[in-house]
């Protein structure tokens, strides 16, 4: 027994030494936490202030009349009016529903195509480069064709969203699968991971970080396609962000126009923050970065 005891202490001592951080860290009190939050917030606040100032400066310079280019003093109250109006929220709701449904469709198509391409060599040779080509295409060029196929309808918008987003999603999935470390594949092989288990236990989780990057890019394309679609394919009397934008233009209501542009920006930033958070927490979990 003493023999095992000595060994145990040696092993545990070595582990403890190896796990000790090489550099000490400062203890963080409440004040430090508050300072940390302030340190990460003030640049963002400063950025907003700079933009508002620059905007106001352009208005003051008299470059355009305030009628077509109002300053923040007129747009911000208009924005506040909008977001307290239930009409506005139905518009946002319609647009976001289209965005999520379109993105979900793109997800299904992208995953099916991505899996097929990564599984069958001939298919990859045949359409692998086509997928990359599609990614570089501005999705707006599909709209005339989509309107011919589906008429002035939501389906036309969905069609273009899928064409815009699915290639990125498929691409993320195939490169995720392609770049699974050969080391892990070999380890899976000697553990007899075969068939479905090889996918559920090894390939899918290993490919996940790159797949999420593909999703993020796919979302960006879907969002752009949707905005272009709502401006081009104007479905009569159906409230949406795109419809509100074109209404505001027709009525020469610059205050409203700019407040909707701000809304589009804010929604884009919020979704981006979400994807970055997902990406970062995955990477931390996977031990890729700390």
């Amino acid at each position, binding site marked *: 027994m003493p023999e095992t005891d000595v060994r145990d202490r040696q*092993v545990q001592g*070595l582990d403890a030494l190896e796990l000790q951080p090489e550099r000490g860290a400062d203890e963080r009190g409440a004040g430090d936490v508050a300072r940390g939050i302030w340190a990460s917030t003030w640049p963002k606040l400063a950025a907003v202030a700079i933009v508002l100032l620059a905007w106001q400066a352009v208005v003051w310079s008299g470059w355009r009349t305030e009628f077509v280019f109002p300053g923040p003093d007129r747009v911000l109250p208009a924005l506040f009016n909008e977001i307290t109006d239930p009409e506005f929220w139905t518009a946002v709701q319609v647009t976001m529903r289209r965005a999520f449904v379109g993105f979900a469709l793109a997800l299904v198509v992208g995953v099916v195509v991505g899996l097929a391409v990564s599984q069958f060599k001939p298919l990859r040779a045949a359409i692998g480069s086509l997928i990359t080509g599609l990614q570089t295409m501005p999705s707006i060029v599909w709209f005339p064709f989509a309107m011919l196929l589906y008429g002035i309808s939501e389906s036309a918008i969905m069609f273009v969203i899928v064409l815009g987003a699915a290639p990125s999603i498929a691409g993320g999935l195939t490169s995720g699968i392609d770049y699974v470390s050969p*080391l892990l594949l*070999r*380890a899976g*092989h000697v553990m007899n991971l075969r068939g479905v288990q090889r996918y559920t236990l090894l390939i899918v989780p290993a490919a996940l970080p790159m797949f999420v990057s593909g999703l993020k890019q796919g979302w960006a394309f879907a969002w752009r396609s949707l905005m272009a679609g709502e401006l081009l394919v104007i479905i009569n009397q159906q409230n949406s962000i795109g419809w509100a934008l074109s209404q505001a233009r027709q009525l020469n209501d610059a205050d409203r126009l700019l407040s909707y542009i701000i809304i589009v920006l804010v929604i884009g930033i919020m979704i981006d923050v979400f994807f970055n958070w997902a990406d970062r927490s995955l990477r931390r*979990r*996977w*031990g890729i970065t700390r």
Partner: protein
Amino acid sequence: MTTMTESRNLTGTSAVEIDDISKVFGRGRGAVTAIDGMTVHVGTGEFLAVVGASGCGKSTLLSLIAGLEEPTTGAVDVGGHRVAMMFQEAALFPWLTVGANIEVPMKVNKVPKAERRRRVTELLALVRLSGFERKRPHELSGGMRQRVALARALAQDADLLLMDEPFGALDAMTRDILHDELERIWREKSLTVVFVTHNVREAVRLGDRVVLLSSRPGRVIKEFTVEGERPRRIDSGQIAEQAATITDRLREEVSRHA
């Protein structure tokens, strides 16, 4: 203390029989003969160390034993033994906790969940990592990761363990301690081990026998039976002496390729 002098029951049966195998990669003019006319027998419960310079087909030999590849001629017989394999890198799944990593081979073998949990606790205790079940691989040191990899290999219920330079990337201190650990687990679990290494001293420290391979193509030059009671110390005179003999023979082989 009795376990140290107790003789293991070497029944004389072979766990692995490799008879006059060859392995050629590729065809025609570009073909490379990795192994040519190699015969190796590994006894049940034996610790066999395999040393050789680059290009001796050590890794190929392990792949053949594991059944990952087929020999071009000859036969490899593992007589129904269950084989597990370890590499220089732990190759743990980074998205799983230590415990979940050890569960993977048991999931493959359809072991029920409660039994899996129980075995994880047991195996972690065996490799002296109790309490690390919920850590992730990147939170551990290299030596700890290799011990998790060993626990994962044992979770396959294997009795034949193939090791491809498993301690090659570790510092001397850690390697030294892991030698003790591997030796202890080998005894406790009555494993048969085939241990491939570049390090002659390590081979003499661990092996019952050391097989020295030639390079390009790989072939057995000579087998050495290691003298000395276990546990041996890598810094003992007896180990150094035997290692020197093998190293001399190995250098001879290397200069043949000049």
